[in-house]
C-alpha cells in the first residue's frame, strides 16, 4: 500500500494539473472573448498622438499652446519637442535620413523648407479644408511668397504655412541712453557712432553685436543694404549674383565701419547674440542691439517690470547713412511656419488629427496663446492678442503690425551663399578683407551656386 501512495499522489497531482489546465484554457478563452469587447470602446476613446518638433515658439509658450489645443480636442494628444535652433535642425536632418521625422515640423522659408521638401506634404488641400476656398486671402501675400521661396520652377504648392511673422529692427535701452545724455534714437549713422561713444563712456556697450551668431551679422548687413541698394538685396536673397554691385559694397563698407568706428563692442566677432547679448540687454548693460519684433515676448517671459511693460525700451530702424536721408525700410517676413511630413499620413485618423493641429497652430487656440504671450506677430489675418496690453507694448505691437504689411523679405534662400556672406562679413569686421574683396568672394560663391 505504501508503494501505491506515491502513485496515488502522482495521479491526484496529475488530476489537479489537468483541472487547472482546463480552467486556465477556459479562462483564457473567456478573456480572449472579453478582451476585444473591453478594449473596443477603450481604443475608440484613446487619443490620437501628433508629434511636433520645432525651435520656436519657446518651450513655455509651446507648452501652453499644446495645453490649449488638447483642451479643445480631447481626442488629440500632442507630443511637442522644442530644441535650440541649431540642435533642432541637426536633429531634423538625422530624423529625415533615418525616416523618423515627426508629423509636424517647424520651418523657416527658403533654405530649410526646400531641404525637407521631399519629406513634406503639399498643404494646399489641407489649407482649403481648414479655411475654405480662397484661403490665401488670410495671409499677407509677401508671407505666402516667402513660404514658396525656392520651390522648383512650376511648383506652386505650399510645403510650409506661416504661423508667425517678424520685423527686424534695432532696440534701444532708454535708461542707458538717459545715463549717457542721449535724448532720442539716432537719426543718422554719424549720430549712431556718436551715441555709441557716449554710451561707452557712460559704462555701457554702445551697440552689442553677437558677431559669432551668423544670422545676426547677415541681418544687420541686410538692414544696411536695404538703404543702399534694396533692389539688388532682394535679388541677392533669391540667389542672383549681384553682391559686387556698388550698393552692396557700400553696405559692406558701413558694416565694416560699425567695427572701425567702434559702434559695436570690442571682441564682437566672438560674442553670441543669444543668450549673451539678449541677457546683457535685458539687464541694462547695452545701449543698442539688433533684435526684432520677437523681443516683445520678454513682456511675458521676464519678471522685470521694465521688460513686462517695455516702458524702458524703444525700437528704431538702421539710421540714415546721410544727413537728411531716410532710415532703412523694414525687413521681415515669416518667423516660423509649419510643414507636415509624409509620415503624418499613416492613417485617416492621424491625418485628421494633424490637420486639426495645423489649423489650431496657425489660426486657432494654439496661435492665440502664442499671440497672447506676444511670441511674435501673427501670420494669419485678423488675429490679435487678447486682454489689455501695457500702453508701450500696444504702441510697439501696433507699429510692428503696420510695418509688417510693407516689410521686405529678410531670408537668403541658398545656405551656401548665406554662409559665405556670414564668413565674409566677419572677415570685414576682423579687418582681414576689404569690403570689395569680401563681396567679390560672396559673388564668386553665388556665381558657382548658380551654375
Amino acid at each position, binding site marked *: 500500500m505504501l508503494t501505491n501512495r506515491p502513485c496515488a499522489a502522482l495521479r491526484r497531482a496529475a488530476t489537479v494539473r489537468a483541472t487547472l489546465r482546463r480552467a486556465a484554457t477556459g479562462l483564457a478563452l473567456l478573456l480572449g472573448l472579453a478582451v476585444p469587447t473591453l478594449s473596443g470602446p477603450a481604443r475608440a476613446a484613446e487619443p490620437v498622438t501628433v508629434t511636433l518638433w520645432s525651435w520656436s515658439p519657446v518651450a513655455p509658450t509651446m507648452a501652453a499652446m499644446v495645453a490649449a489645443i488638447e483642451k479643445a480636442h480631447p481626442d488629440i494628444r500632442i507630443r511637442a519637442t522644442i530644441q535650440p535652433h541649431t540642435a533642432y*535642425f*541637426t536633429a531634423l*536632418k538625422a530624423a529625415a535620413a533615418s525616416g523618423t521625422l515627426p508629423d509636424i515640423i517647424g520651418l523657416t522659408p527658403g*533654405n530649410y523648407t526646400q*531641404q525637407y521638401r521631399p519629406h513634406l506634404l503639399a498643404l494646399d488641400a489641407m489649407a482649403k479644408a481648414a479655411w475654405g476656398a480662397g484661403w490665401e486671402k488670410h495671409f499677407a501675400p509677401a508671407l505666402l511668397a516667402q513660404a514658396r521661396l525656392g520651390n522648383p520652377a512650376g511648383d506652386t504648392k505650399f510645403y510650409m504655412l506661416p504661423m508667425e511673422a517678424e520685423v527686424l529692427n534695432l532696440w534701444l535701452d532708454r535708461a542707458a541712453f538717459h545715463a549717457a545724455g542721449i535724448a532720442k534714437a539716432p537719426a543718422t549713422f554719424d549720430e549712431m557712432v556718436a551715441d555709441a561713444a557716449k554710451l561707452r563712456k557712460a559704462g555701457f*556697450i554702445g551697440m552689442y553685436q553677437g*558677431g*559669432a*551668431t*551668423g544670422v545676426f551679422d547677415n541681418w544687420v548687413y541686410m538692414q544696411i543694404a536695404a538703404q543702399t541698394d534694396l533692389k539688388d538685396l532682394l535679388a541677392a536673397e533669391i540667389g542672383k549674383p549681384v553682391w559686387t554691385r556698388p550698393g552692396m559694397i557700400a553696405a559692406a563698407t558701413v558694416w565694416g565701419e560699425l567695427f572701425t568706428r567702434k559702434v559695436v*563692442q*570690442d*571682441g*564682437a*566677432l*566672438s*560674442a*553670441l547674440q543669444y543668450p*549673451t547679448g539678449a541677457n*546683457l540687454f535685458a539687464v541694462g*548693460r547695452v545701449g543698442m542691439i539688433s533684435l526684432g519684433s520677437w523681443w516683445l515676448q520678454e513682456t511675458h517671459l521676464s519678471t522685470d517690470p521694465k521688460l513686462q511693460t517695455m516702458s524702458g525700451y524703444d525700437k528704431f530702424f538702421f539710421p540714415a547713412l546721410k544727413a537728411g536721408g531716410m532710415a532703412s525700410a523694414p525687413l521681415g517676413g515669416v518667423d516660423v511656419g509649419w510643414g507636415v511630413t509624409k509620415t503624418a499620413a499613416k492613417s485617416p485618423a492621424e491625418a485628421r488629427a494633424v490637420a486639426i493641429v495645423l489649423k489650431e497652430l496657425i489660426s486657432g487656440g494654439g496661435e492665440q496663446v502664442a499671440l497672447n504671450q506676444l511670441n511674435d506677430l501673427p501670420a494669419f489675418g485678423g488675429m490679435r492678442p487678447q486682454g489689455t496690453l501695457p500702453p508701450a507694448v500696444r504702441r510697439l505691437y501696433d507699429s510692428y503690425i503696420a510695418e509688417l504689411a510693407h516689410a521686405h523679405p529678410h531670408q537668403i534662400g541658398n*545656405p*551656401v551663399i548665406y*554662409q559665405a556672406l*556670414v*564668413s*565674409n562679413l*566677419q*572677415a570685414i*569686421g*576682423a579687418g*582681414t*578683407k576689404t569690403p570689395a574683396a569680401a563681396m567679390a568672394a560672396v559673388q564668386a560663391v553665388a556665381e558657382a551656386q548658380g551654375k
Partner: protein
Amino acid sequence: MAAGASRRPGLPRPGARRRGAILGAGRWEAALYVLPAAALFAVFIAEPIAANLVSSLIGPHHRWGLGNYAMAAADPVFGTAVRNSLLWVVVSLAFEIAIGFALAILIELHLPRGRAVFRTLLFLPMVVTPSVIALVFNTFYASDYGLLYGLFRALGLASAFPALLGAPATASLAIIAVNVWQWSGFFVLMYCVGLSAIDREHLDAAEIDGARGWNRVRHILWPLCRGTTTSLVVLGTIQALQQFPLIYLMTEGGPADSSQTLATYIFQTGFVQDQMHYASAVAVMLFLLALALVAVEYRLAGGGLSLAAKRARP
C-alpha cells in the same frame, strides 16, 4: 633572456595552439564568440565608414567621381580647417604633455602627502561638460564684461585688452588653451600611473650614479615613461582632431572661418550648408589624416602603447 627560451619543453607554441583552435574543432565555437563583436563592428563602424566613402564620391550635380575632393582642394576654408586641425594636434599635445609630465613628477615624486587630492582636483575639468566649459570661457574671454577684461581693467590696461576669440589670428589658440586646461588633468593622471610603476630601485640607483634634477628627468624618468607618452600622443591626437563642441560653442568656426577645423567644417558643410556629400569627403580626409598622424607617431615612438612606465631590464 629570449622570450622563447622561457618556454617549458612539451608545451605547444602559443601560435600553434591558436591556429589549432581556429582551424580545428573549436573553429565554429571561436567564430560564435567573435560574431557579436564582429556584427556590432560591421553595423556601427564598418558600414557607416563605407557608406560615408560612397557618399563622398557623389559629386556636384550628382555626378560620380572625385568631384568633392577636387572641390576641397580648391576650397580655402578647407585649407584653413586642415591647418587648424594640425595646429590643434601640435599645440595641444605639446602643452598637455609638458604640463602633464611636469605636474605628475611634482605630485608623484615631490609631494609628501595629498597626492590623491591633487590628482582629483586636476582631473575635475575632464568631468565638466564641454558646453558648460564653452559658456564659462566665452564669458572669461569676453570684452567689456569678461573676467580677463576685469583683470586688465584693474591693472589699468583695459585699452590693451586683446579680443582673443574675436580676432582671426588668436581665436584658434584661445580655444586650444581651453582644451589644454580641460585635458591636462588626464595627462597628469596617466603620467602619475606611469611614474608610480617605475621601480624605486632604478631611481635610487640613478641617484647614486649622480642623476639628479633635470638629468634624472631627461635620462631616467622621460625614457621610462615612453610607453605612456606614446599612448597619450595617440589619444591626444585623436581627441584634438575630433574636437567639436568647444570650437562650435565658442566661435562657430569663426570669425571668418579662422577657427574652423575639419570636425567643425564637416558639420558646417553637412548640416548648415546642406552639402552632405561634400561633408562626407571632408570626413574621409579627416579619417585619413588621423590614420596617417597616428601611424607616424606610432612609428616614431617605436610602437609600444602602454600607460605604465617601461620596465628597465635588470
